[in-house]
């Protein structure tokens, strides 16, 4: 089972981003952990394919804010972290390839009160990362 560790790693990266925290503060959590709030970012594990060699996991990240500008600011930051030119994060020494899958916008009846983007990412462990500094031959 890897999904919990990968979420911890992703959450740490997201919580360290200034653009994200400027909008949602510390309200970054797994869906269902806390009551819904605006602004906030929630995460839901959608698919956890344990049977496959690489055990990919698909996550849905939901961003809620009072303005669409704030939502897109957070989306841009998330995409920069998880869908950049070298989209590999580290989870306990294992590289995890992250890929953007799809995005959508959901609007409620109270459309002037909040704005929302929902983003799907696939997190896929690839291999143990090589750290030259930890190589005994180099020490």
């Amino acid at each position: 089972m890897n999904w919990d560790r990968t979420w911890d790693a992703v959450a740490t990266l997201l919580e360290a981003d200034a653009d994200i925290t400027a909008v949602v503060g510390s309200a970054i959590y797994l869906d269902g952990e806390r009551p819904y709030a605006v602004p906030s970012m929630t995460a839901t594990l959608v698919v956890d394919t344990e049977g496959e060699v690489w055990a990919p996991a698909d996550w849905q990240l939901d961003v809620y804010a009072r303005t669409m500008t704030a939502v897109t600011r957070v989306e841009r930051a998330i995409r920069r972290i998880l869908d950049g030119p070298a989209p590999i994060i580290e989870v306990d020494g294992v590289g995890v390839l992250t890929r953007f899958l799809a995005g959508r916008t959901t609007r409620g009846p109270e459309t002037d009160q909040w704005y929302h983007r929902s983003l799907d990412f696939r997190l896929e462990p690839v291999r143990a990362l090589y750290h030259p500094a930890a190589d005994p031959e180099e020490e």
Partner: protein
Amino acid sequence: MTLRGQGVLLQVRRSTDVDGLSEELLDGLRAAATEVMPRMQETVVAGVRETLGRVLTGPAGAGEPPRKVEGDLQRSVEAGVVAWTLDRLRLRGSIMVMHPSGGRLEFGGLGIHPHPYYRPTIARLAPDLDRMVEDALR
């Protein structure tokens, strides 16, 4: 995709790299793909209906597929109406979930936990769908 509390069109996508193949060979592959896509859609529709067939004594947990109550959502799943295109060999089929809560249940929203039923089904069926494409293109 923008959801406003209505049914939802969900895509079935599979792609094959066909760079460098002749037009004649591509025509044959397109014909095979045309034949296999409806069967893939039927497989997905059956799979999604199976996912939506869970009968629970209590409500489904956050992130779990919705439980079956009356079966309206399950019955509203159907193959898309000629809503697929073939661009080179990227197959794009679709299934429609006509129930008004179809989109909201899959993706959630403020105050509504996502209860994904389509994406887990596609992940479960992916090996079967890939095999169908491979067999058709052989």
